[in-house]
């Protein structure tokens, strides 16, 4: 056998205890265990219920605005002079990013479970906005935990959440960013087990969250597959997505994982550089550990203390990665690379000027990889990049980085 580790399918996971290989699982306090099991049971029933699926599909179409277009970026393709580049335009979704997909799925589950209060953590604020949006849409009170530092650099999103009626609770512990917001949300959940549903913002956390969020996000990949077949009559050669926790990447990749001809690259945030110590690249610069309910690659010191992540993009600024990604890396199905703050900024500027699309800083990292990879491929090749968020929220950060005073 050439490769004993190669699984028959890349889409069979997780196992019934929520493990992808050695990754994933349910590493939570006993107080939360019964809740986590209850969410799993409810989700298993919901995903087989045609009425649940129909309601999700209806909201995707009429509230979110799906399907999002698959757009051929003609000028960028010409500029880079290589593979044909398509964007999956999830930045055109209601609320401006892909996060709304899993927020809708999770709040429908919360309602089905009879929960009356919603909590969420947020980094860039995109998941917080998405959660506040669906909480408003369904009339549930919502508390969003957000690191104080993130609140400063993402002030417009803080205001958006408040407009939507959510309470934004500042988190001042630890690094005051996404991981600390997640600690605070878990603490709140433990303390309000009776009525509260925790809407997690990425493919991380205890099982069933990584699988559940992936399933809701896989609408991206299913649409992209149909759309590329229509546009080109064949599968793409290459998929590219940015990765913090990894929800947009798994959403695009998932439906293609068993299509062997499709190569996939996920782009971590290298911050000021992988050697600088100031980055958010868990696979490139971390090792396996346990945090926030799952075993995965984490940025940590020799003593197992979690380290602060750094990225110009608040949405990638997390010291871990979803467990399914950790597994896809270990079996070699997806290639994990990184892009620095500087490369992301260059990509951000290029796309704004050449295609008239201001991307969020998160997918600007994916674009940085497209800019490296596309010119090396011949013009017959097809690439799809997940343009998972728009850049309106980032203009202040970018202005500051470019030394522009607004």
């Amino acid at each position: 056998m050439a490769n004993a580790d190669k699984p028959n399918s890349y889409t069979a996971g997780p196992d019934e205890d929520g493990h992808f290989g050695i990754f994933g699982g349910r590493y939570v306090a006993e107080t939360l265990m019964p809740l986590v099991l209850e969410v799993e049971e409810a989700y298993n029933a919901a995903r087989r219920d045609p009425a649940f699926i129909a309601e999700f599909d209806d909201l995707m179409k009429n509230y979110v605005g799906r399907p999002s277009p698959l757009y051929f970026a003609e000028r960028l393709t010409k500029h880079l002079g290589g593979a044909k580049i398509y964007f999956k335009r999830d930045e055109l979704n209601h609320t401006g990013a892909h996060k709304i997909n899993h927020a809708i799925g999770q709040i429908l589950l919360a309602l089905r479970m009879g929960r009356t209060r919603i909590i969420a953590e947020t980094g860039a604020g995109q998941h917080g906005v998405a959660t506040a949006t669906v909480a408003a849409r369904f009339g549930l009170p919502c508390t969003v935990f957000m690191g104080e530092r993130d609140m400063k650099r993402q002030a417009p999103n803080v205001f958006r959440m408040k407009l939507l009626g959510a309470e934004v609770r500042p988190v001042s512990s630890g690094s005051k960013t996404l991981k600390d917001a997640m600690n605070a949300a878990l603490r709140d959940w433990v303390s309000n087990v009776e009525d509260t549903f925790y809407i997690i913002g990425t493919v991380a956390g205890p099982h069933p969250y990584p699988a559940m969020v992936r399933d809701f996000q896989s609408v991206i990949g299913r649409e992209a597959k149909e759309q590329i077949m229509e546009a080109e009559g064949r599968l793409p050669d290459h998929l590219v997505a940015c990765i913090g926790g990894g929800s947009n990447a798994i959403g695009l990749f998932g439906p293609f994982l068993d299509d062997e001809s499709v190569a996939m690259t996920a782009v971590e945030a290298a911050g000021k550089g992988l050697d600088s110590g100031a980055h958010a690249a868990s696979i490139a610069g971390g090792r396996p550990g346990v945090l926030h309910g799952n075993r995965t690659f984490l940025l940590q010191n020799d003593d197992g203390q979690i380290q602060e992540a750094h990225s110009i993009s608040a949405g990638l600024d997390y010291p871990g990665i979803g467990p399914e990604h950790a597994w896809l890396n270990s079996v070699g199905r997806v290639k994990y690379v990184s892009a620095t703050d500087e490369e992301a900024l260059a990509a951000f500027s290029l796309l704004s000027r050449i295609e008239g699309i201001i991307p969020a800083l998160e997918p600007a990292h994916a674009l940085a990889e497209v800019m490296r990879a596309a010119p090396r491929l011949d013009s017959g090749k097809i690439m799809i990049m997940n343009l998972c968020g728009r850049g309106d929220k980032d203009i202040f950060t970018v202005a500051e980085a470019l030394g522009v005073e607004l």
Partner: protein
Amino acid sequence: MSGSGKGRIEARFAALAAEGRGGLVTFITAGDPDHQTCAAILAGLAGAGADIIELGMPFSDPMADGPAIEAASVRALAAGASMKRTLDLVSEFRKSDDATPIVLMGYFNPVYAYGIESFLDDAARAGVDGLIIVDLPPEEDAELSGPAAKRDIHFIRLVAPTSGAARLKLLFKDCGGFVYYIAIAGITGASGAAITDTDDAVARLRAETKLPIAVGFGIKTPGDAAAVVRSADAAVVGSAIVQRIAENLDDAGRPRPGLVDKVLDFVGQLAESVRNARG
């Protein structure tokens, strides 16, 4: 009797039963506020009336802990705490006390990073009697609980108000030392538990296990501790003790003179109240 931890926890609960009183379990975080001060507190705890010592393994992301114990972790890590230094504290303590059980409590990642086998070898050598790993539910703890049992280190499980009847059987399987009942669905140091609830809960657990039952989370005052041990075998006090450490630091975070005595005085009050609770 030295070296192996076998039997210290059993011996202590047997002695408590013989005396007809409940026990006091005290929690402090290893290395809080610094190594020397922590060693001094540790050395005084048993004399002040602690029957069992829980020593927190500092972690950067203590998700099940409230502000008091999180702050203790932050202080300890800032002062240079590490897993090796935590085990050093236990070894130092064992030089003068071979009877008081020590239970290490914390989160899995620092243990995993140290290496499970080396951690257990070094913990056994240092004189650790038990482990409480907050984020390892029975579904995930096999890789640690089995190897721990081989070294006579008890794997102590947490039971929550939310743990239903079916989970109790799972929780009590291969559980050792004692059962740690979480008095409230919440984080450490949260507002006070309703004591009648813990009486009912303790009765519910007694029907399923012969192990001694300690009750913690939200036990803040000598009165709370006394109320708990009327039905439970021991009361666990953590945040309220750690808070005494925090209150006796100067603006730069250095211990003020008298910190150790103040902490031990409070432990003494807790112990006295626990000793008289059933009297």
